[in-house]
């Protein structure tokens, strides 16, 4: 947990763009962060904030009309944006694996789960058939699935079982980094809870390095040690989970925290942030959150804020860091947010 852990993944000034019919869309704008070995970094934000694009950029799985326009992605100190296909195939799954959303066709429907697990072990891991089979059973045990399930077809499994299979598969080659992109979004609340427990347990026990992406900030706390909040293609704030929840410095983070219903407090109604994120096609002036920010000034609307260091482990992109305490207080009150003209 100390600060001396090696940074496994370093993203430096990453910008990713898409060519669309309406124009050039900069989905990720100058994003920099790190994931240390053994640490789970949560990535949270609304749809369209760029979190999925960041993941796709790291995995080099951008669609045909997408490209990394600038920046570096350093994995174990090597810039993987420069890798050719052969080099990429060397690190795929062996070093970086993923857990996807778990929608219906997240697995190939015409092969049973076991085959799909074993496939990657044989092709990428050079396992022999028998070894792969044994390892598959072992992996299923780790995630709490009966080995008989290996013969099931994806449609025969429940959502929760499929997600466990996903997790098992992601661990198959002992990767250095696991990218989990909305792994519980497609599940019901009860199942979501169980899977989160499992992921959390595995992450801590096996000291997995992980990027955990979600739009739901309430589930981050359980799994992640650090959190990165994204808004409109940029990082709004990044710090430890504790700080993000207890001492947020960016108004957007404050809004997100206050929108979480808790069982403990008595709330009349939920605070929510009115309005929508901006259209990323047109270049924007000023802070992107300004239109929805209850504390925005003319300076906010004119100038885009730089990433400021709050302390060693905490950064936020706001002009008014020093006023954060006051903002935090106000953000607890619903009138603050409803006062916005949107």
């Amino acid at each position: 947990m100390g600060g001396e852990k090696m940074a496994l993944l370093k993203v430096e000034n990453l910008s990713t763009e898409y060519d669309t019919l309406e124009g050039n869309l900069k989905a990720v704008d100058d994003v920099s962060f790190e994931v240390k070995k053994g640490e789970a970094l949560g990535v949270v934000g609304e749809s369209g904030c760029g979190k999925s694009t960041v993941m796709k950029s790291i995995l080099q799985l951008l669609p045909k009309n997408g490209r990394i326009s600038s920046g570096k992605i350093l994995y174990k100190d090597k810039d993987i944006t420069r890798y050719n296909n052969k080099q990429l195939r060397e690190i795929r799954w062996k070093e970086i694996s993923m857990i996807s959303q778990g929608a219906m066709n997240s697995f190939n429907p015409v092969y049973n789960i076991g085959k799909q697990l074993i496939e990657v072990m044989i092709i990428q891991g050079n396992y022999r058939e028998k070894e792969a089979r044994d390892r598959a059973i072992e992996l299923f045990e780790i995630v709490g699935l009966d080995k008989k399930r290996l013969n099931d077809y994806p449609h025969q499994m429940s959502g929760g079982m499929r997600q466990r299979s996903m997790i098992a598969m992601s661990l198959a080659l002992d990767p250095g980094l696991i990218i989990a992109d909305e792994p519980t979004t497609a599940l019901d609340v009860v199942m979501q809870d169980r899977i989160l427990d499992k992921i959390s347990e595995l992450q801590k026990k096996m000291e997995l390095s992980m990027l955990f992406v979600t739009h739901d900030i309430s589930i981050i706390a359980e799994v992640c040690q650090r959190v990165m909040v994204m808004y409109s293609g940029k990082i709004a704030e990044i710090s430890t989970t504790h700080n993000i929840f207890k001492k947020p410095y960016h108004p957007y983070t404050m809004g997100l925290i206050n929108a979480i219903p808790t069982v403990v407090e008595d709330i009349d109604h939920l605070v929510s942030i009115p309005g929508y994120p901006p259209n990323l096609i047109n270049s924007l002036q000023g802070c992107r959150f300004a239109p929805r920010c209850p504390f925005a000034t003319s300076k906010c609307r004119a100038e885009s804020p730089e990433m400021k260091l709050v302390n060693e482990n905490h950064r936020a992109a706001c002009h008014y860091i020093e006023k954060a305490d006051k903002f935090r207080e106000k953000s607890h009150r619903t009138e603050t947010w409803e006062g916005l003209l949107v």
Partner: protein
Amino acid sequence: MLIFLGKRLIQALIALFILVTIVFFMFRLLPADPTAAMVDASLSPEAQMQIKASFGLDQPLYKQYFIYLKNIILHGDFGMSFFYRESVISVLASRILNTIILGTTAIIFAYSFGLVLGALMAWYRGSLFEMSSIIAGLFFKAAPQFWTGMIFLMIFSYGLGWFPYSGIREAGYEASGIMKYFSMDFLHHLVLPATVTGLYYLAQPMLLMRNAMLEITNEPFIELAFAKGLPERRIIFHHAARNALLPATTTLATKMGQLIGGIVLIEYVFSWPGLGREIVMAASRYDYPLAQASFLLIAFVVMFYNVLADLLYGFLDPRIVY
């Protein structure tokens, strides 16, 4: 799986039964003289009487119907061919096999080529290859099969001399019985008619495959396959194509039916001694018993392929069966 198969078989049998009934009534009600449909007027009066009796032609229609059914189901007796002066079944026995071999080869060609081409077309979207495949498929679909056959004969048989122009074997060739089907000579005769037939049916599986591939490439499991670092060829075929071929395979049954129906034309052009050619010759000679039976057997073959195709689909898509 067995229940699935059983249900399909029963459906097929019922349909066949209804078809036999339709044919019966067609042949009794349509021509001016119904008895002419079963009895050769050029036979001796005694022989005519015999046939009339065995088919109950002097009895009321409904009784005739039952006799007709009984003859077919119990004895496989479709009557006597006017032309060949043999029982219809003995004439048609070898024909069925010839037609089945030709039809099966053609559909295998059409679907295997079509599916592979469709997959490649989708993967290399927007290329010249894709464009020319679409044009070629369209052309062969719009051209009547018999004409394509004639053109191929012109070019490849008479023009280049690469292939024989008729029949299933050279006159005087030695091999007989079932072995003749495995001879090089037979295969040599099979190539042109099978190819011509296949080209006509290539377009649909090709285009269906292409469209399905384009959709499949957006599915999450394809992205997963890339993330796993699998080689591209494996992703195209083992993952994407294996799924994309499902829509095309649903058409296999209807296509097979169409193919056997249309095979008449190919057999005629290439003088291929199958059911199709027989039905044309029988109908033109007014050899009604032979024509009836050929028709029924063609329908039977079609239904056989339909059931087979359904089985195949069940095998390919586990979601149907499990």
